């Protein structure tokens, strides 16, 4: 069992790296604090006749432990920002992407494909439920909305999560890097069957996907 | 109480008169269709803030209070601005 689910999208690896970096940094701090704590508990445990030192503080020490976290935090923030804007900033979405429409409703996902002409909003569009088929190694941008309550599109293997909000068009993208089937879940409490609102994303080799699209999903 | 002695009596009727004039001006401007919307909104909000400040400063005697009372009274205002502006940014896209 891996700690993080197998990564299968273009930006998953970079996001995981930030996760591990933060884990390393916070892990070091955590171990440092806990070890110091235990050491102090043993070393300075109360004994008869001993007296605590009357120390009210140390400006130098406090400056040090203000500056060090600040520097670490800035580093983490800068690293995070790169992936964030890559994943979430619509201005930086990949250009030659396949566009899909996704509508969430209690308790299903409906995915509308552009059909053979590659254009959404035309007559040959077709819709499938709870199964998103996408080509491998090609970016997929999807326009998401919801028919009722707030849902959240979550494919753990792709590290993508985006809320579907009624009345809004939220956009997200991913590029699958490995052929296979991945589970799709709703991550935002959306009603009685929230926990059962699942689907899958099927990543096909590009030619197979083109054929499927041309055949109107047959 | 020492504050009572320190307090000058402002001319309350003059403030009242000023508030009335400002209200009339506001209503007049609102009916004027000549101004562009953005200018109109800016002017009207400006007038409203002016009126509100008059009430707070003179009728609520903030002008004659200590600084810390003024700070206490204005503490929530930045929060109100932060809330509204940040959410409006959502729609500025």
């Amino acid at each position, binding site marked *: 069992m891996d700690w*993080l689910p197998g990564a299968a999208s273009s930006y998953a690896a970079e996001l995981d790296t930030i996760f591990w970096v933060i884990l390393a940094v916070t892990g070091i701090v955590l171990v440092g604090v806990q070890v110091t704590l235990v050491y102090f508990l043993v070393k300075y445990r109360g004994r008869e006749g001993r007296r*605590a030192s009357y120390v009210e503080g140390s400006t130098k020490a406090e400056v040090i432990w203000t500056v060090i976290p600040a520097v670490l*935090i800035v580093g983490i923030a800068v690293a995070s920002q790169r992936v964030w804007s890559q994943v979430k900033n619509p201005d930086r979405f990949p250009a030659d992407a396949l566009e899909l429409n996704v509508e969430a409703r209690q308790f299903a996902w409906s995915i509308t494909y552009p059909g053979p002409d590659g254009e959404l909003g035309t007559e040959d569009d077709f819709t499938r439920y709870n199964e998103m088929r996408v080509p491998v190694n090609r970016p997929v941008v999807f326009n998401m909305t919801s028919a009722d309550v*707030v849902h959240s599109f979550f494919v753990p293997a792709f590290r993508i999560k985006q809320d579907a909000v009624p009345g809004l068009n939220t956009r997200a993208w991913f590029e699958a890097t490995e052929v296979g089937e991945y589970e799709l879940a709703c991550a935002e409490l959306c009603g009685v069957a*929230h926990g059962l609102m699942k689907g899958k994303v099927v990543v096909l080799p590009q030619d197979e996907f083109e054929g499927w699209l041309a055949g109107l999903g047959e | 109480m020492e504050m009572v002695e320190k307090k000058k009596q402002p001319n309350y009727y003059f403030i009242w008169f000023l508030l009335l004039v400002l209200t009339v001006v506001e209503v007049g401007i609102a009916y004027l269709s000549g101004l562009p919307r953005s200018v109109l909104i800016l002017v009207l909000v400006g007038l409203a803030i002016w009126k509100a400040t008059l009430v707070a400063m003179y009728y609520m005697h903030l002008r004659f209070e200590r600084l810390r009372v003024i700070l206490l009274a204005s503490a929530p205002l930045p929060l109100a601005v932060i809330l509204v502006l940040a959410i409006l940014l*959502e729609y500025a896209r």
Partner: protein
Amino acid sequence: MATVEAMAAPLAHGHHEEMSFVRKYIFSTDHKIIGIQFLFASLAFLALGGVLAIMLRWQLGFPGEAMPGVGVVAPKFYNALVTMHGTFMVFFAVMPLLVGVYANYLIPLKIGAPDMAFPRLNMLSFWIFVQSGIVMTASLFVEGGAPGAGWTAYAPLSAVPQYTGVSLGQQLWIISIVLFGASSLLGSVNYITTVINMRAPGMTLFRMPLSIWALFITAIIALLAVPILAAAVILLFFDQTLGTTFFLPADGGQPLLWQHLFWFFGHPEVYILILPAMGIISDVIANGSRKPVFGYHSMVLAIIAIAFLGWITWGHHMFQSGMNPLLGTSFMISTMAIAIPSAIKVFNWLGTMWRGNLRFHTPMLFAIGFVSLFTIGGLSGIFMASNSVDIFIHDTYFIVAHIHYVLFGGSLMAIFAAIYFWFPKMFGRMMNEAWGKIHFALTFIFYNLTFFPMHILGMGGHMRRIYDPTQYEFLQPYQPLNKFITISAILLFVAQLPLIANFFWSLFRGKKAEANPWRDNGLEWTVASPPPHGNFAVTPIVYRGPYEFSSPEVEEDYLPQDVPLNGEREVVGAGVGEE
């Protein structure tokens, strides 16, 4: 204990006539009685919240199996459990336990005031809280079931009865929250006025104990944050009942507006839940270490900084909501910034223990537990603050682990420390130390066994609030871990029995407490346990800060705030506040 009788004017408190039981213990205006009333009421809600937690954990550990005595948890009931567990714990257990109990009990005693500024409003605050709790509890039993939209009540799910199948329950939830807001408002007005105006002579702001600083700042946050929630739930109520569309996309409403309003309240609320805990812990650690708090001034500044930053970070709850990505960046930065004052506090607690003479009484053990667990909770917060990592772990068990490390490992540990620490003052009897230590050990162990594995679930992508994890193939390998967590949670619940037994046994049979059993410096320890009505026979005069432990100037290792040393007698005049 030396008092400076000649210099202090007697307090104008003539309440010496015998009061009836009802006036004295039920509709009392004495802040100490009101604090104790809050204690009993919110401990009851804490137990209720715990029972709900066990039921929902059962479903996650043993999905679809009948729980003994309860039966199979149905999906709708599961959502109700999730919702009501969060609601009760946040609004009716942790918040009143910290603010209702200890702000009420400690503020007048620790600043040397006879009572709150507005004793009758204080009583009203408690009784509105009780009503609010009754309404909330009632929502569990009404037709249509309890609210199931989560404690965050995201619209439109919470706004349209058809979406959850709950209507009356959700409306009662809203009414209860509005009542709760009124109660909290009355409390906050009281605490703020009291701290500003009713400090004893010499009790300057920077001689106040950190617990009072934290409770004061918390009261300001609550004063300004809770009305936003009240406004939001009122709009939600109209959506529910009058057919308005504030949060519904039909006719131009804005579902995200709810999230903004809720979290604009909700994030400061998080600090309402942790700041008083930090303050209480500072007091207890200084006492247990027999040393002054390391860097008192920076501790105060850190409290203020956290309180201020808390207002500009709410958006990190909404990173995945489709918000403007630029806002996402700024909210990440402000959120990350909070790590700095939090880190200062943790290091200063360690600094306080450094070269101390540690006494491991039960409150100190819980305080140490707090430092240890809060560090984990604080550090795991950095994962969520990072907007890109949050894409993956948002709404997973990583968040659940984080919030429980902060609210249980943090706040609740501090509450336990406070219960043991001030029990002698409240009831005039000591709690049993041995059982207290057993309670601590069991709680600490089972706490970690319950909540630490949740980080692993979260890393695996385990969504929160789902009814049956086994429905997902990728979560099936985690089912043994889920079972393990559930069993640990049940044991954690059982581990609270020593507290209950100890509490009630000590109430009647505990060793009689002297005035200052912990050899502490605070003003509350200069009066009898429990203190008389009106608290102080004469207004105390304060000569120094609250943390003069092991001062080289005296032989004992503590130096109460109101004891003058040689040459400290040139005080002129006395009395404060009430001009």
